[in-house]
């Protein structure tokens, strides 16, 4: 984000030698965001004498970011189509309430499934997804077909769904949730060392394969490609980032007391010197899957193309035969389904459903999308940007908490960063003429 000066300077000079970022075909804005993220991490690491960038804290940072990051990917679509969704936190609460009640009351009472039955978590998640998608689609219908501004529809939704959740549970905290369900929360469900490595290697191969396929495709059409060394450099960076991340997560050891409890629960005795690591949390894997799917939808499907076209010029989209009303319904339905996925992660992390779950998440989600470069004027935004935005926000918040900044000051700083990030983005766009 703070590369605007250098890129503007480079633009004004004659394009004699291509810049490094151009040769690598890297998005300068993405580089700026990654730079800002790394700066935040390094500064807090210095301020905390190295306590910030420990495997344990990085593990915690990622699992704390997942719920907001998942919803932020959907918020990108909503904002790109020039709408807004203020109801995501409340919708998360309703989905969470439905899933909690399914697990603890409705399935056991009405279907006679005993608590702990293997089908319970999956039926509950299915019900939550349907709830989220249907409520989202309904709000999209109000916006797209009845032409009520999304701001109003979802402001109403914010009040309505928070309290529908309340009625579903009579205001009670519902827990503990099903043990399998809890595995989606983070610390209670991790892949362990072996499977984390397997996944990291598979992901690396997939990323390198995608790079190779893209290059071959470009060559077959006679399009210009980047030099081979640039291709290898990019592949190296990607492989290093994925495997490095897995390495860090695989360095976080499960506390001995917890391991001993697990052995005792199985009626065994823990061998002396036995250790185990957490590895990749299932919730983070879920976020990665959501990110990949949403990126493919955004870039490689008609739906995604129409979302961006309608956001760039709604009249042009309609004149091209795109049903922009139905498109609005689809966008809000996707947002609703993602709220349900976030509800799984959020309630599983807490091991119970409480009334205030997801409170103020709408603001965090919108802020993550906007910090990630989604323009409120519509038509511009990226999935990876929104996820990075969520990570930056969570890092700021936990970093300040770790340094011991007062809670009120933490919010003041986060608010300031939000406004500043958008300002930098506006300046960047004005100078580069992009958007």
């Amino acid at each position, binding site marked *: 984000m703070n590369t605007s000066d250098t890129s503007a300077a480079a633009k004004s000079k004659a394009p004699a030698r291509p810049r490094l970022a151009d040769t690598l075909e890297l998005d300068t804005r993405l580089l700026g965001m990654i730079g800002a993220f790394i700066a935040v991490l390094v500064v807090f690491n210095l301020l905390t004498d190295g306590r910030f960038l420990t495997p344990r804290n990085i593990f915690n940072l990622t699992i704390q970011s997942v719920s907001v990051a998942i919803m932020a990917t959907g918020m990108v679509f909503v904002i790109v189509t020039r709408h807004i969704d203020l109801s995501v936190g409340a919708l998360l609460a309703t989905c969470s309430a439905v899933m909690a009640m399914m697990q603890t009351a409705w399935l056991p009472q009405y279907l006679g499934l005993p608590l702990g039955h293997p089908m319970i978590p999956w039926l509950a998640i299915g019900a939550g997804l349907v709830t989220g998608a249907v409520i989202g689609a309904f709000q999209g219908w109000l916006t797209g077909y009845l032409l009520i501004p999304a701001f109003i529809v979802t402001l109403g939704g914010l009040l309505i769904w928070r309290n529908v959740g309340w009625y579903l549970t009579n205001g009670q905290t519902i827990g503990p949730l099903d043990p399998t369900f809890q595995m989606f929360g983070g610390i209670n469900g991790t892949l362990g060392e072996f499977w984390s490595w397997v996944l990291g290697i598979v992901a690396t191969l997939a990323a390198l394969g995608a790079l190779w396929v893209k290059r071959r495709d470009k060559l077959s059409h*006679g*399009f210009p490609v980047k030099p081979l060394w640039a291709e290898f450099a990019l592949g190296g960076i990607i492989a290093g980032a994925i495997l490095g991340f897995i390495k860090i997560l695989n360095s976080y050891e499960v506390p001995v007391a917890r391991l001993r409890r697990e052995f005792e629960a199985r009626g065994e005795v823990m061998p002396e010197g036995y250790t185990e690591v957490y590895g990749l949390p299932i919730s983070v894997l879920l976020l990665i899957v959501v990110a990949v799917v949403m990126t493919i939808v955004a870039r490689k499907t008609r739906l995604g193309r129409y979302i*961006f*076209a309608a956001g760039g010029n709604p009249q*042009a*989209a309609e*004149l091209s035969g*795109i049903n922009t009303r139905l498109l609005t319904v689809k966008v809000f339905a996707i947002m609703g389904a993602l709220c349900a996925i976030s509800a799984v992660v959020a309630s599983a992390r807490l091991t119970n459903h409480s009334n205030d779950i997801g409170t103020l998440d709408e603001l965090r989600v919108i802020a993550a999308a906007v910090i990630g470069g989604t323009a409120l004027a519509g038509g511009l935004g990226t999935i990876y940007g929104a996820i990075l935005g969520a990570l930056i926000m969570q890092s700021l918040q936990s970093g300040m908490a770790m340094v011991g900044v007062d809670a009120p000051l933490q919010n003041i700083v986060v608010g300031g960063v939000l406004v500043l990030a958008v300002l930098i983005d506006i300046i960047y766009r004005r100078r580069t*003429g*992009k958007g």
Partner: protein
Amino acid sequence: MTPLVDIRNLSIAFGGVQAVDDVSLDLYPGEVVGLLGHNGAGKSTLIKILSGAYRADSGEIWIDGKKATINSPRDARAYNIETIHQTLALADNLPAPANLFLGRELRTMFGFLDDSRMESETRKIMARLNPNFRKIAEPVSALSGGQRQSVAIARAVYFNARILIMDEPTAALGVHETKMVADLIKELKAQGLGIFLISHDTREMMELCDRVSVMKNGQLIGTERVEDVTEDDILSMIIMGKKPEKAA
């Protein structure tokens, strides 16, 4: 010979304003019919009915001697009607290939967008229409007025239009680019397309069109062959809203 398009008694009103009032018009293959009139005369509204953006209150559209039902831009495209709108109707945030194929994307066998094929097709057609066109990958907001225009024209020409509607295609263009559009119109006409052309430039219309129709206040004042009338006759039709004296 059956007309390519036969518009019969079309009318449309917007909240009490009769934007198009009982207009009948036809178009033959290989013919250019010009629509003239003041701003607000109903030209753009008329062709927006033909291109599916508006639905007429009454009247019929016949294509190739058969009654056509055009309720949406998609329907119009199914009849091979392509439109270059006055506003160009481009999504500014997307690059040229995405705009060219908007609503009709090429896809791979797995159903995903085939961006490479769309890009290579775009390069091909742009090489023909505007050889100076280079910015394939940039959003069209970064293009000049003439380049944007050629993207909009490419979109209409690419899909084998039989009926082409051009609403002020040269309004934003320089002298050189205007000539390119004029040459293109002649070329397409020679290929047998029927073209409805809207413009304010009477001289250009006299040069490019076979017939011109003049509209005023939503009504059709008259349709004349260009060789039968002078530029002054046309101007007086536009201003006075009356047919010229044939006796003269």
